[in-house]
């Protein structure tokens, strides 16, 4: 019972803060709403008993991605208290289109997939040993490929960002 109440609480939190991301007047508020939304997703993982995934969500999305967004904002935009920057440019309708298309795909996938009729067992916790075995032994080659991709992306980002120093 308590779990259901908490589920609805976090569901509203995720949706509410997600709306906040889009409607906030300043980028800083958007980033903070994004952080809250991702935190809500982590709480959902805890309710589903996948604690490892919840902690990874907090570590990667909460601790790293959102903080990087905030740091980039700090370095590029003006501080709070200045004039609010207009966030909606001519790209707004296309962004809306992309969002609606993604939502359509997701809703379509949810409707089309055949769910097990009765989830009587409930969620089970997957031990992280099992996750790491799958990640490093069964899909080891994929893992290495993904890490090379990330490395290339990081090096490329540095080259792009440091271009003004070259000349």
């Amino acid at each position, binding site marked *: 019972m308590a779990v259901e109440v908490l589920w609805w609480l976090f569901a509203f939190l995720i949706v509410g803060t997600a709306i906040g991301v889009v409607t906030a007047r300043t980028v800083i508020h958007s980033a*903070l709403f994004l952080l809250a939304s991702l935190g809500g997703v982590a709480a959902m993982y805890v309710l589903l008993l996948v604690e490892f995934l919840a902690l990874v969500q907090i570590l990667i999305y909460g*601790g790293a991605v959102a*903080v990087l967004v905030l740091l980039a904002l700090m370095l590029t935009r003006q*501080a709070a208290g200045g004039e609010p920057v207009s966030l909606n440019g001519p790209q707004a309708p296309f962004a809306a289109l992309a969002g609606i298309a993604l939502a359509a795909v997701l809703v379509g996938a949810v409707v089309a997939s055949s769910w097990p009729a009765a989830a009587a067992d409930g969620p089970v916790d997957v031990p992280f040993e099992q996750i790491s075995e799958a990640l490093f032994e069964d899909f080891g080659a994929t893992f290495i490929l993904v890490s090379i991709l990330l490395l290339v992306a990081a090096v490329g980002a540095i080259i792009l960002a440091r271009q003004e120093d070259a000349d």
Partner: protein
Amino acid sequence: MEFGDPFFGNSYIDAIIRLNIVVLVMTLVVIYLTYGERKVLGRIQQRIGPNRTGPGGLLQGFADALKLLSKEDLRPRNADRWVFELAPFAAFVPIFVILVTLPFAENWGVRNLSLGLFFVFSILGLNIVGILMAGLGSGSKYALLGGVRAAAQMISYEIPLVISLLAVAMLAGTFNLNEIVLLQETRPYIIVQPLAFVIFFTAMLAELHRAPFDIPVAESEVSGGYFIEYSGMRWSLFQLAEYTAMWAFSIFAAVVFLGGWAWPMGTEWGWGWQLFLTIAKSFALIFSMMWIRGTVVRLRIDQLMNFCWKGLIEISFALLLVNGFFLYYGWPEEVLALVQWAATIIFIGFIYTRGVRRSRANEYIGTYRNPEAATP
């Protein structure tokens, strides 16, 4: 009695009561840490420190707390209202959540999480958010500068911190803090992994903004950094977060590296001795932090970043690799300890020789009048 068994009523009430005990202890510890820090620093700087309020100044912390509570809570006009007002809470909550999983003695703690170690360092990542909020929301250039510095420093030093912890988790084969402590019954991990401890301690100082890494809160450069605009209650929340973090980190380091409650004689002499061991080890670490603050000068920001990205990260990755080799081939732990000690001595010796090298700054004094000569 097992760790998870509810001691007070059902499990929800049990969790709340345990949390309350931890919070009360935390508040007392923080009040006396501020007093202790002033006394220790006073001693190092040949002063007396607080000695007027109560016998030996022992009530100074309570007087300070009362003063802070009664001060006016100011907010600059151009501050971003909600970001500014919520920032102290965002800074404090992650630190507080860490206390949930720390084992103070056998079966003494709020909750025994199977992913305890991982829990601690993933929650630590959120620590930056409050500081960034304070820096962004204050509407002040000093706060913004302090926030940017803090964020850059904390993101960088999180990597060696996490990797040095992973080195220990590899050896232990578990993330559960209680099991890690139990595995250290015969020898604490600092004997097997001294290099990991040195890296962890350095990164910990940086994460806590303690000297010599107190660049984000440097009074002489950014006049207090991200909490410059705060006063009264909210400022004291930042202070509370800082000292609680110091205490929580010290207990965490004591648990992971110094044997926590299990070494020496922890399982034989009962819980009183275990509690004493944890507290004594954490206070020894806190004292060494204060000692460093009193004796080591502050680094520059470029030195700080260079030290992390060009020194600590490479060494910590090498440490992880060496540990992996030893574990995969099943080589004896004594050899691993020897290799690590040798590496630690070389590492510290290298830092020492760099540190005592005669500064070449004298050659540049006055050269700002003559820009051509200044380029080295």
